[in-house]
């Protein structure tokens, strides 16, 4: 598969362009969605990211990568930022950047961890924590464009840490062919039959796809989760080249 073509063309992708914060939504106690407006944004693929660059008054610059959380809505892009205590960039974006303030973005970026609506294979999405962000972009891009069956297995510490919980509940009920299952690692809801524990093979067997369905698997989260889940999927018989991973981290 040739995967070199991305929307926007090369020149637009590599240039730093001004972006204005137009809306902020609280997702959890530590995560916020930022809506940025970028002139002449040519669209992007679900799973792609942007680099965001901040410049301080003394000229110091810091750039970080953030996954796009939704399909483009004209010039509006959404990223969801998890605040990392002591981080250099995320606390500023999550708390201090004001409506109307300007940053710079470069993108859309990446061609590996992407889902295209013309891919009709079943899809297994496995998220750890804020690793759900690019997977949510795939779920949102699927609605109305694809009938590919999707299953999301979403590992979080506690029920309060779920990002997009209300929308996922609604979509699981309304978007045909989307199943959502949670794996709680520290504290589960009272009515949950599964005791809190890290994700294990039974979770993927119960809520994923059998290997002979040949699903495309997207795994995103902190490095330890990504490595454990990718290993479990291979051990269960999934072809390594059908498993795409993205490790989240940084500040």
């Amino acid at each position, binding site marked *: 598969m040739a995967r070199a073509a991305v929307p926007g063309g090369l020149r637009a992708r590599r240039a730093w362009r001004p972006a204005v914060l137009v809306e902020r939504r609280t997702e959890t106690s530590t995560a916020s969605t930022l809506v940025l407006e970028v002139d002449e944004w040519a669209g992007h693929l679900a799973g792609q990211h942007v680099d965001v660059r901040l410049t301080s008054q003394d000229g110091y610059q810091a750039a970080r990568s953030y996954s796009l959380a939704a399909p483009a809505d004209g010039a509006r892009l959404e990223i969801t930022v998890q605040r990392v205590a002591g981080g250099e960039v995320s606390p500023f974006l999550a708390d201090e950047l004001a409506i109307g303030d300007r940053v710079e973005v470069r993108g859309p970026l990446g061609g*590996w961890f992407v889902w295209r609506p013309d891919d009709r294979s079943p899809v297994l999405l496995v998220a750890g924590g804020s690793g759900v962000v690019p997977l949510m972009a795939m779920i949102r891009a699927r609605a109305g464009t694809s009938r590919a069956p999707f299953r999301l297995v979403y590992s979080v510490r506690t029920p309060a840490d779920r990002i997009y919980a209300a929308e996922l509940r609604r979509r699981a009920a309304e978007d045909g062919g989307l199943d959502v299952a949670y794996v709680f690692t520290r504290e589960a809801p009272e009515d949950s039959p599964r005791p809190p524990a890290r994700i294990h093979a039974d979770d993927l067997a119960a809520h994923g796809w059998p290997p002979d369905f040949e699903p495309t698997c997207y795994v995103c989260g902190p490095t330890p989760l990504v490595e454990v889940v990718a290993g479990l999927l291979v051990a269960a018989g999934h072809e390594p080249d059908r498993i795409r991973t993205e490790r989240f981290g940084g500040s």
Partner: protein
Amino acid sequence: MTHTPSSGPYDGNALAGPLSEVFAVEVTTAVARCRGCGRSSAVAELAVYGPEPGLVGRCPGCADVLMRVVRRPGEVWLDLGGISALRFEVPQ
């Protein structure tokens, strides 16, 4: 490298932006062969350390340094010394 979960890629996928400054095509989907152990990996699959003073991409198999990208005002340093070959898929 911190393992603190954040909100964006922190592996070879994160090299897409920095490498877009010097390559004409998407590099993260290219397959890199490690000069040390011979393993072939998509650039997106590399373990990445940084971002300061530069990004370091290591082989997911043997952890050898495959590439280093250092951005300075007005220049990009690119060290591909750990890679014996890069394979790009291109349109026919």
